[in-house]
């Protein structure tokens, strides 16, 4: 795969000009996560209004993939209802998952099978190339894992 398929212009834009960077004031929840693979960290702050994610922001440093993914995520998720947000998370996860074959050998030697782009995901499709790089998937997922934890915590302490 050419490198430019991984490092698309859109990611460049989000990396250089991250959206929603910082902390949400009066956040209901904040989640701090570390990528065990490289040590990169992220702090995600979220405010809810009833069942809606009314505001969110992220802080932290990391590689292009993790930063752009976090920025894109906040843009996509902010303003969504919790159920809709969960749907997006699922779609995003599905996009990054290599399709696993019945036979273990095939899984490994075959290149990642590109799924058809998921229109619902809009700009997030720019991260599709990451599924070729399982270790970088962890970078792309870091912000999303924080979001999942936030939603989990919210469920437990409504």
């Amino acid at each position, binding site marked *: 795969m050419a490198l430019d398929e991984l490092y698309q212009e859109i990611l460049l834009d989000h990396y250089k000009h991250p959206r929603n960077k910082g902390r949400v004031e009066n956040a209901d929840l904040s989640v701090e996560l*570390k990528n*065990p*693979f490289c040590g990169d960290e992220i702090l995600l702050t979220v405010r809810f209004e009833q069942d809606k994610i009314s505001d969110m922001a992220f802080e932290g440093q990391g590689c292009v993939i993790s930063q752009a993914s976090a920025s894109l995520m906040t843009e996509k998720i902010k303003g969504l209802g919790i159920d809709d947000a969960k749907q997006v998370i699922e779609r995003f996860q599905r996009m990054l998952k*290599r399709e*696993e074959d019945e*036979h*273990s*050998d095939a*899984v*490994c030697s075959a290149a990642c099978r590109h799924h058809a782009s998921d229109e619902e995901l809009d700009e997030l499709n720019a991260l599709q190339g990451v599924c070729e*790089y*399982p*270790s*970088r998937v962890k970078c792309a997922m870091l912000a999303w894992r924080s979001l999942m934890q936030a939603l989990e915590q919210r469920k437990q302490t409504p």
Partner: protein
Amino acid sequence: MALEVDKIRRDFPLFQQADKEGWVYLDSAATSQKPRSVLAAMNQFYEQENANAHRSSYALAERATLRYEAARERVRRFINAAATEEIIFTRNTTESINLAAFGWAGKFLRPGDEILISEMEHHSNLVPWQRVCQSTGAQLKFVEFDEQGRLVMKQFHQLLGPRTRLVAVAHMSNSLGTIHPMEAMIAAAHRAGSLVLIDAAQSAPHARLDVQALDADFIAFSAHKMLGPLGIGVLYGRRSLLEEMDPLLFGGNMIGRVEHLKTTWNDLPWKLEAGTQNLAGAVGLAAALDYLDELGMEAIEAHDRMLGQMAIQQLCAIPGIRVYGPPDAHGPVVSFNLENIHPHDLATFLDQERVAVRSGHHCCQLVMKRLRVAATARASFYLYNDEEDVRRLAAALYQAKDYFKKWL
């Protein structure tokens, strides 16, 4: 669908050696031979995909990581675990049991708690529990076995009480070949509020293991007894248990955040795998499972059991040979002795006749004690053995009787 043993043997390089002509290997319970496909899978890994997993992001390391994790998924599928994270790679059954013992029992057991095992256990499913009991103040209880080599189920139910926190038993005994009534034991243990660990070292090679159907909490087995390579084993654990338990070994990839004086753990399954893992071993195990599934575990089970039955019958018919273990509920592992001849001498004689059996206590000193023997000879059968092998064993035993006559 009987197994075509002649064809199968051709898959095993060891049996193709010139000096193995007419040679009968009856020690698969100690370790099995390896088919070509398993060696090929490991060679392919080393020759084309070797890199350290989970640590680097260049393409080769990605592939190594994928191969390792695909092997984990292959194991999950083989034993029908609910989730891939429930498969922990270890070195062998012994380490798997130690991990459950120190990581779970060592952390949660308290004085007054009880661990229930049997007198028929392999030392690997006995000594770790002794140690855990010493460190936690828990008590170790033993189910005995009867003259036929069956666990005394009445005693099992009596010993199982509100203080029993864990029942740890082998599915199949490696010394007497007994197959225990696992389903009933697990159900009873769960009713009593106890967890169950199954030592499947001997059963996993011979019968389909469905961990969800069995409803066991921990299961341990070794690759090397089921056509796989040495140096890799598995601990299956229910996710919630693996989550709450401690690691046994520390360092490398099992960490989350490391500070000077404290450390958090990585997610499952990596939390329980410290240091560089045996990736090639995992790949070899996956190939072994492919081979087993290709033949079909049901066919293998039927074949192996038939050989075990046949061996029991033929050996029982030889005057002076004493066979241990129950006539039914018996796997392809047969322990026996020739009257007044030490099994070491017997095994050495059989070896001259090109029949390889094991002699010793089979890591079951408590069993030997109860049988009131120092040791036994043991023949164990697997998918590359056939009826002719059983006959060869029986014939060699007749010759042994003859040879040792003057020693009596």
